[in-house]
């Protein structure tokens, strides 16, 4: 058996009759940071939801730590999720709780640890993201970057084996962007985690991930290490990495010919 923590084979998913994923093969080795990239609407967030068990695949297998996520009942799924951390796009912090209580939430829900020990653990987790001094603040007092870091501290609260990041760089200033990128890499290495980052931020991701999957129209279009991706001659990857306006992904939404739409054909 390989050292893969996440293994996906021939995964299909559809919302009703609309296919989203059309046979995805993907794996993430233990200790790796894997990026899943693609343009908006390509199915990467759906893949994120499938890995976390929020939705079930229509076909194919998806295993996390050897468990087939699609076969798990609610209890089994909750058992698995206790060993997973999730960082949502905008943090999804509980707005009626302080920073401290947000990080302590899972410890209080899932363990019988005494409050004194929870305090120490929370401060350690917050220290890892550089926000130990902010433990008394309410979430409304945090900047976007700080909220993302608190959410990261909350995600590692119970020392998970896997962390899923949904667009962790969205809407951040350049400093916060670098901080979050470094934190993902550092926490993965020091805590021995596996990280899967769903993102379309190419430049920041290629700096710190081990492996990249490019998804387009529900299929893996390209994959490789950051160096391989940068050197790729595939038109889609080239367009994406260099942020080109037109290419395989068209600038214009499909439409009738321009002159016909402007009724210039009779002129």
């Amino acid at each position, binding site marked *: 058996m390989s050292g893969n923590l996440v293994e996906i084979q021939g995964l299909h998913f559809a919302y009703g009759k609309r296919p989203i994923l059309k046979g995805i093969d993907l794996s993430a080795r233990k200790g790796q940071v894997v990026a899943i990239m693609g343009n908006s609407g390509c199915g990467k967030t759906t893949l994120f939801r499938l890995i976390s068990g929020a939705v079930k695949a229509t076909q194919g297998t998806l295993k996390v730590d050897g468990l087939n996520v699609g076969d798990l009942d609610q209890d089994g799924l909750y058992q698995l999720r206790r060993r997973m951390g999730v960082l949502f796009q*905008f943090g999804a*912090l509980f*707005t009626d709780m302080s920073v401290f209580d947000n990080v302590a939430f*899972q410890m209080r829900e899932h363990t019988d640890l005494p409050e004194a020990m929870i305090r120490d653990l929370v401060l350690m987790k917050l220290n890892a993201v550089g926000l130990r001094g902010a433990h008394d603040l309410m979430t409304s007092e945090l900047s976007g970057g700080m909220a993302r870091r608190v959410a990261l501290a909350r995600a590692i609260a119970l020392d998970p084996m896997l962390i899923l990041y949904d667009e962790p760089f969205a809407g951040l200033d350049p400093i916060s962007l670098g901080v979050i990128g470094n934190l993902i890499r550092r926490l993965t290495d020091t805590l021995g985690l596996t990280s899967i980052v769903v993102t379309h931020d190419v430049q920041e991701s290629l700096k710190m991930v081990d492996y990249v999957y490019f998804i387009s129209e529900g299929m893996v279009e390209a994959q490789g290490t950051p160096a391989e991706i940068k050197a790729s001659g595939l038109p889609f990857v080239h367009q994406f990495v260099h942020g080109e306006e037109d290419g395989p992904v068209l600038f214009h939404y499909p439409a009738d010919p321009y002159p016909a739409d402007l009724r210039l054909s009779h002129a």
Partner: protein
Amino acid sequence: MPERVIGGFRKIGHRTIDGVWRMGVSTRFFLLTLMHSGICLRRPQLVIREIFSAGVLSLIIIIVSGLFVGMVLGLQGYETLQTYGSEEALGILVALSLVRELGPVVAALLFASRAGSAITAEIGLMKATEQIAAMEMMAVDPIARVVAPRFWGAVISMPLLAALFSAMGIFGGYLVGVVMIGVDDGAFWSQMQSAVDFREDILNGVIKSVVFGVAVTVVALFEGYDAPPTAEGVSRATTRTVVTSSLAILALDFVLTALMFRGV
């Protein structure tokens, strides 16, 4: 023309199916809430927090409204009763009106507007900002952690608020009838004491307020949990909570009154 008629029927059909579907889903939601209520016994502090949100924060509107409703009852009741020379019965009129009807009904309507809308907006926004999804991802069941404590907090608060509303109303009636107009103090209280029955009047009023509390809270929780995760979705859900729960209160009041006081 037939196209339009068929379209109209189709629309009615869709709405009927949607209404039946929502009733089914909300009933399932209610049963799930009851099944996940064990957490409220294990961690009563969660319920106490919700009693504060739903109950304590509704105190001002309940106290002020109760006082004014009682004062109006005192004025109107005196006007009517003095025509028949029975102004000493003012205490009975004020107390029975409040304990049997106005206390539970008006307090529940106010509760739906203040606490019900707040519950819907809070849960709807938790959903829109992915807090509910985050909780599920942390292997914490939101029905147990978010919904059940709010349900019991509100259901416990409702009869207490209705009792307070009635008490303030009686005090308002006393202020107008006895202090301002000069109805005999002893007659006001003693006639009230002899005419108000604990089981027939007070207990039935309490039962009404518990039923209204359950109805308002289930509507508020379900609308919040079912709200589309957008600003417009939460706003519509909040409005629906107030409208649906107000109509439910009035309909249930008729049914309960018929069962309790007429022996139907």
